[in-house]
């Protein structure tokens, strides 16, 4: 019988006047390692990152930046329906990923393509998803940027905000039971942290001791809403005190701080089965998405100030300082990346979409009789009007276009 700890022993009382805490008794500082000049700060404990790993991280950040720029341009040209950039947050996303075991599960919000780049998702794989072609793992069913990879342990993105947070708690709990020494890291924005699912996730993780790292990208905005209208508190970090959870706030544009803090969080999670909250202070340098124009809600001046703090620039300075990178290499690599992005984009654009049958598969493990009837009716309909449905028609045998086998059953089709 588990009983309440305070059930027989009275709480230690305090008398005097009623003293209200005002909610900001505990200031949570921001941990930082790398100065903006690329030099480690005095006394800061830098992580132990070797040359190859440092270059892998940097190249992932660079590739993410280049892809983002190109794809936003493609969206502007009307080649792509929608896009979202990671720009400005590459250190937070790639740094956290690099500090994990590659087999740890990552559950992301939508702005974390850098994690996939780091783990080796190819440009082809990105493009296939964005153009929703027949090679897209998601079979063209979701909007661009909703990636997923089973082999890279990256959960398929879902648009509803916050839903992945309690899922991460559950996933991590399963990992603990499986005893495989792995953990889950879940990314979310400071806006998504307002959802009820956030509270559920952190409380359950603390109670059930799940090895999960809650990684909050506090990038200052949720679409147009600044953090002062998202919460009255000093960020998201103080909430950990309400769950008795380990927490740290870090400079999210500082690759070394992100890496080191996540590495340590992972140790706490995996060795002690304790959840950890990390709040990475960063800035969304680009628009919220291709549908957004930030000039309506924030100043150029503010954006400029943050562009100075560009995490890629900061890491480059550190690498160059150590002779692990050079401007020449940078130029070559950028050119290569741009070329690759363009080439893979062209390939992906040209591929046909998934066939008509993918409209009804995967709803259930097996296609139900009713769904098969709906597909049959739809197939007949598309054959009757192939010009009206070029995508669906292209996946059907072209010589049946004028088939007489047309049913008038409109069963859902």
């Amino acid at each position, binding site marked *: 019988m588990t009983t309440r700890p305070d059930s027989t022993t009275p709480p230690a009382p305090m008398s005097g006047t009623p003293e209200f805490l005002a909610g900001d008794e505990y200031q949570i500082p921001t941990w930082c390692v790398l100065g903006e000049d690329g030099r480690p700060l005095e006394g800061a404990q830098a992580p132990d990152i070797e040359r190859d790993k440092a270059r892998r991280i940097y190249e992932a950040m660079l590739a993410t930046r280049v892809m983002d720029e190109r794809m936003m341009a493609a969206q502007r040209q009307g080649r792509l*329906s*929608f896009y979202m950039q990671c720009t400005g947050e590459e250190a937070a996303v790639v740094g956290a990923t690099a500090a994990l075991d590659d087999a740890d599960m990552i559950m992301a919000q939508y702005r974390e393509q850098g994690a996939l780049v780091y783990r080796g998702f190819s440009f082809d794989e990105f493009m296939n998803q964005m153009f*929703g*072609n027949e090679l897209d793992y998601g079979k*063209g*069913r*979701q*909007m661009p940027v*909703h990636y997923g990879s089973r082999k890279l342990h990256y959960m398929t993105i*879902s*648009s*509803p*905000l*916050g839903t992945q947070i309690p899922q991460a708690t559950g996933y991590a709990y399963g990992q603990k039971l499986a005893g495989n020494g792995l953990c889950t890291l879940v990314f979310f924005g400071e*806006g*998504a942290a*307002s*959802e*009820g*699912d956030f509270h559920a996730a952190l409380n359950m993780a603390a109670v059930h001791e799940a090895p999960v790292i809650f990684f909050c990208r506090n990038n200052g905005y*949720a*679409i*147009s*809403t600044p953090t002062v*209208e*998202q*919460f009255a508190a000093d960020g998201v970090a103080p909430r950990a005190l309400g769950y008795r959870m380990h927490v740290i706030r870090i400079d999210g544009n500082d690759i070394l701080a992100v890496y080191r803090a996540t590495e340590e969080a992972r140790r706490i999670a995996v060795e002690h089965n304790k959840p950890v909250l990390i709040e990475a202070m960063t800035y969304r340098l680009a628009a919220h998405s291709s*549908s*957004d124009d930030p000039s*309506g*809600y924030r100043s150029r001046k503010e954006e400029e100030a943050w562009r100075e703090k560009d995490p890629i620039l900061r890491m480059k300075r550190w690498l160059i300082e150590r002779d692990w990178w050079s401007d020449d290499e940078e130029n070559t690599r950028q050119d290569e990346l741009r070329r690759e992005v363009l080439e893979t984009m062209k390939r992906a654009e040209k591929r046909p*979409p*998934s066939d*008509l049958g*993918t*409209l*009804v598969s995967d*709803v259930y493990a097996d296609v139900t009789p*009713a*769904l098969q009837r*709906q597909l049959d009716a*739809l197939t007949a*309909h*598309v054959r009757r*009007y192939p010009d*009206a*449905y070029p*995508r*669906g028609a292209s996946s059907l045998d072209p010589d049946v276009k004028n088939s007489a086998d047309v049913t*008038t*059953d*409109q*069963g*859902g*089709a």
Partner: protein
Amino acid sequence: MPNMNMLQAINQALDIAMAEDDKVLCFGEDVGSFGGVFRATSHLQEKYGHARCFNTPIVEQGIVGFANGLASQGSVPVAEIQFADYIFPAFDQLVNETAKFRYRSGDLFNVGGLTLRAPYGGGIAGGHYHSQSPEAYFAHTPGLKIVIPRNPYEAKGLLLASIRDPDPVLFFEPKRLYRASTGEVPEEDYQLPLGEAAVTREGSDVTLVGWGAQMEVIERAVELAEKDGISCEVIDLRTILPWDEDTIVDSVLKTGRLVVTHEAPRTGGFAGEIAATVQERCFLYLESPVMRVTGLDTPFPQTLEKEYLPDHLKIHEAIRASVNF
């Protein structure tokens, strides 16, 4: 009469309601100074101040819970859910609270002042989560009213009526019409009745029923059918709950045939309710079964959206099947 699009008509309705009654408040995610991601609430914060038009944190269950409390206090909240796909975190507040507030208290308290606006529906390449049509989920919930406009004129008049209605209203706005649908809209204040369907075209061979963005699609199908010599009666249901059975029944008693269309999946969709009621009330007059032209029983897709949607060609086929049964 000025010509405007549906967003402008909605913005005007909100403006009129806020100007007239300072108990009216507009809030939701990005609704404040930005004016909402679709700009339906543009300039309202400027005009009426932060206290009456503001951003909320991202928490739909909180937005509706807060709105329920405000309404029970006597305020007139017009809350926005950024996309109807994101209304589900607020489902409990809507179904267990909003809908039952007056009933459970024996009319001591009510949240009749509440209006919840949300853009809904497909056709914008939005995939699973920017395309859903959730009206049928709420249509199984006595105590709620559900209203859907088909064009700017209707949007303004129905929204004003919804805000002033003594019962809580879910007002779903067909987002693909936001800018695409334009028309003449009077500048002044006017209301269109809730709970009344509108016969938008008279005919004798078959009745077509739909709502929201499907009304345009029906029109295109009807044009094809009229070329076949089929005379169509078209009805915009306008209020999904409580719905106007009599107008539809009267029409079917005349035409003997009915085709109902909506974007949402077929199973459990509101067309089923209409078909069930009509076969009961018009049994001896039906010349062919009530036909449903709907979305597939799948999540809303992305690249094959065109194939998924109940378009004019599918409706035209259904009309022919109904008449040639």
